[in-house]
């Protein structure tokens, strides 16, 4: 193994390879920071470039793009309240409030360092524990996926705003929207209105961009005040620097993020989008001061961002150890591996050549480049906030258009984006919140299709959902957390009532 790492090191520490990784990372950072452009697009764009390269160089470049995009999603989330991917939704919860207090630089500094820690830790876990974790992920059948999604839906309670009931309604709206399209089990069209674009259901990206970016633009448009001068802006550039010590002080949040990213991340098709939300939820629940979350609280940012880059390593586990990609980005990456002639699977880890170790080290190097580039860029990112409001609003909308149209060239999705934008604006204005809608949209299909797939496989028998150990565990935890939430809510209400009366 040591000799393997030495061989791998020899492959990584070459000027060409380092340059390729740095280039990939830079492209990933740029594309991840633009709302709507995804790491999958960055990797797909680089794929043909890598064909002529030796394996470690080519794969390192693709991993760089993955790593860079994973970290830079936090930039628009913090500065503008616009998450570019589902996994940076939770970054907005505390990142944006902190930026509004004039501490955008601090929020970015925390996010960058937390991403780096998450990425490095997940690389260590990937290289040591990939085969057993992959085996664990394989034990997820329909029943386990269903219970996982129920566990995930409980997070709605954590991300709901002032009213639990309204948060729940928002989650159900997302769930309902997810049933639109071809039914995944029988193939019947549901609410498709003969619209080709709706056959595969509502795309997550236009919904996400609409609910967060467009609704935020509409809010800014409503509140736009021409008399507000930029000179009064409270943003301080001098605090914009990477925050190693402060991040380390919140080590519990870092650990929560790494664990959640490494455990939930590898579950194909479900983990990627919820790992960071799970991290946020857990950090908040077990915090001594849960009421500070959502107001610009540092552990909120740290947990989410460390989870965000840890889940990339997590998602690489089934991709490398089983050849099963969890979502789009790793699917494109898998294509890259196979074109290079690297066959993923357990054998890859027993392989005596240094290639697999080279890949691990390349991923580590990508994280280092990510840290360096982000640290150099941090003062530049903040300047986005110096752009006058009306110009910024139109530029954001233009980027939203490019992001949504660029994925599939479908004008219908632009209407969908605007529709979700208007809906999101009112949901925010009337205390429903938009984060639960996204949760419903992501988890809804997992819950529904796996419940029905399970019932089909078990011939209509419900009991396996409660008797299979992993499934039962998730259900018990979900019920426990739900009870805890209701109890806290009840106590919180009593306290405010007694405050009001006294």
């Amino acid at each position, binding site marked *: 193994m040591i000799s393997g790492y030495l061989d791998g090191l020899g492959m990584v520490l070459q000027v060409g390879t380092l340059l390729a990784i740095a280039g990939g990372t830079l492209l990933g950072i740029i594309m991840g920071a633009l709302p709507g452009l995804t790491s999958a697009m960055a990797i797909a764009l680089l794929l043909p470039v890598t064909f002529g390269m030796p394996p470690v160089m080519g794969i390192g470049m693709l991993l760089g793009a993955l790593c860079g995009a994973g970290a830079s999603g936090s930039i628009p989330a913090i500065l503008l309240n616009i998450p570019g991917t589902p996994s940076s939704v939770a970054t907005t919860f505390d990142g944006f409030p902190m930026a509004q207090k004039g501490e955008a630089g601090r929020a970015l500094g925390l996010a960058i360092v937390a991403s780096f820690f998450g990425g490095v830790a997940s690389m260590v876990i990937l290289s040591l524990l990939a085969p057993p974790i992959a085996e664990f992920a394989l034990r997820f059948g329909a029943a386990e996926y269903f219970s996982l999604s129920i566990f995930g839906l409980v997070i709605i309670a954590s991300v709901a705003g002032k009213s639990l009931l309204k948060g729940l309604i928002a989650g159900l709206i997302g769930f*309902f929207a997810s049933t639109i399209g071809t039914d995944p089990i*029988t193939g019947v069209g549901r609410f498709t209105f003969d619209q080709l674009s709706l056959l595969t259901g509502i795309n997550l990206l236009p919904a996400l961009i609409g609910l967060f970016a467009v609704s935020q633009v509409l809010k800014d448009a409503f509140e736009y005040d021409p008399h507000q001068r930029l000179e009064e802006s409270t943003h301080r550039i001098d605090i914009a620097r990477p925050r190693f010590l402060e991040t380390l002080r919140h080590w519990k949040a870092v650990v929560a993020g790494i664990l959640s990213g490494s455990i939930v991340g590898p579950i194909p098709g479900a983990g990627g989008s919820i790992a960071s939300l799970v991290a946020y939820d857990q950090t908040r629940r077990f915090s001594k001061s849960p009421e500070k979350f959502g107001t610009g609280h540092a552990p909120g940012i740290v947990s989410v961002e460390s989870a965000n880059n840890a889940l990339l390593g997590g998602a690489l586990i089934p991709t490398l150890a089983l050849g099963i990609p969890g979502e789009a980005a790793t699917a494109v990456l898998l294509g890259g591996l196979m074109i290079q002639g690297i066959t993923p699977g357990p054998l890859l880890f027993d392989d005596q050549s240094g290639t697999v170790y080279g890949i691990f080290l390349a991923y580590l190097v990508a994280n280092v480049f990510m840290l360096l580039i982000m640290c150099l860029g941090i003062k530049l990112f903040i300047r986005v906030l110096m752009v006058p409001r009306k110009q910024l609003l139109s530029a954001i909308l233009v980027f939203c258009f490019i992001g949504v149209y660029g994925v599939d060239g479908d004008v219908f999705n632009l209407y969908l984006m605007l529709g979700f934008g208007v809906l999101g604006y009112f949901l925010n204005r009337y205390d429903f919140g938009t984060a639960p809608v996204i949760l419903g949209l992501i988890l809804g299909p997992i819950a529904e299709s796996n419940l029905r797939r399970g019932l089909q496989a078990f011939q209509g028998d419900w009991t396996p959902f409660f008797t299979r150990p992993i499934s039962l565990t998730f259900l018990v935890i979900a019920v426990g957390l739900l009870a805890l939430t209701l109890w806290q809510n009840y106590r919180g209400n009593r306290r405010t009532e007694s405050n009001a009366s006294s």
Partner: protein
Amino acid sequence: MERDIGKPIFDLLLLIASAAAFAGAMALPDIEIVGDLSPAFFPKLISAMIFLFAIPCLVKDVREWRGAAPSGGSRPANRRGVMQWLWIVGLTVVYILLFEPLGYIPSTAVFAFCCVIGLLFASGAWRELNASQRVKSLVGAVIFAIVLAVAIYYVFTDLFEIPLPE
């Protein structure tokens, strides 16, 4: 507490929409696969739940609305906000309509220009400007719109190979 009639109206709309969704779900075909729930099961369940949960929200928001004092002073700011909001939504619809027929560069330039100038008008700031300031804003908006449209086009199509309508 600000008196906002929109809140109960939104609840009411939710109630109506969920009822309509339930009716739509009733019309879905019932297909029997051994053990499987019908494709209509979840849409029915979810729309019914939204309907049920929206009722207490409506009751609570109506009660709050009647209890709150009629809002006074913030009217002009509010009207300005609505104008600005409607301007952006309307402009976005036009942008979508023109996006493919006109192509990316012209539609974006028009959109960005109208967005910036429109906000000046809708917010009433235009009236407060003198002639030279007006010329300056117009020229600034034109330059901004063209740079935004053209620069982004070449960065995205050539560098990122993301196809945009020509």
